[in-house]
């Protein structure tokens, strides 16, 4: 993801990561992994619930987390592309997301 950031920027798309992790944990992740795109925290899964992608008790200690999901949202907040994996091991690849990003007008 990070090493394709320039490609996303060129396509006019800003990637944003969201999880239930608190800001401190996300900051650690960003520092360790060298991520420079925004990482947002939804510790009480408010937005995750609003978007109906809650994985109840999916976390390691039984807390509620997000199921993996990707939304490409245009400037009018209309969803242009989505990806909801059926298998945890299979994630949207940067290549696929860039194809969707470049189709935007």
């Amino acid at each position: 993801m990070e090493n394709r950031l320039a490609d996303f920027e060129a396509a006019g798309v800003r990637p944003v990561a969201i999880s239930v992790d608190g800001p401190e944990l996300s900051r650690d992740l960003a520092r360790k992994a060298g991520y420079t795109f925004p990482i947002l925290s939804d510790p009480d899964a408010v937005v995750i619930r609003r978007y109906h992608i809650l994985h109840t008790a999916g976390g390691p200690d039984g807390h509620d987390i997000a199921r993996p999901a990707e939304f490409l949202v245009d400037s009018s907040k209309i969803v242009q592309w989505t990806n909801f994996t059926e298998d945890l091991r299979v994630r949207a690849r940067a290549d696929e997301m860039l194809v969707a990003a470049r189709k935007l007008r």
Partner: protein
Amino acid sequence: MPDGTQRRSNVAPWWGLLFAIVALGCNAAFFVGVPFQAAVTWLSLLFAAVALIFLVTGLKRAFRQPEVYRGKVLTVVLTVISLLPAGLSALGFVGARKLPGATEAPQVGQKLPDFTLADTSGKPVSLDQLLANSSSASPRPPSSGAQTPKAVLLIFYRGYW
């Protein structure tokens, strides 16, 4: 023991072991990020099933046709060894798919409800803000004067632990 007729070696459990290892080895694909990962998950399950067929065949040959096939003990040992990787890949398949559906989630063409969430510095950031400017969140200089992004790619993930 040798009665003139050579008993055949029972190769089925060896095939079983091979397929079981390949089934488990398929999971390596998820770490290196190859394309067609969804197909790989099914391939992994298919290989585990093929392994099981070979193992059952091997056991049948060893115990029902001992006059034709050699190696009862070896067959049992190979079967036990093979069951671990085959079972792990089958369990991995089932476990990785224990995900709630996303049928209620916003679909293409629908409008996303706005949100405001804290970034890594604790500063609240809204979807509107993300769409509006090349905020301080991105330290890189914006390319070719594109100050406002055309779109935001929201990536929900399970968390880091």
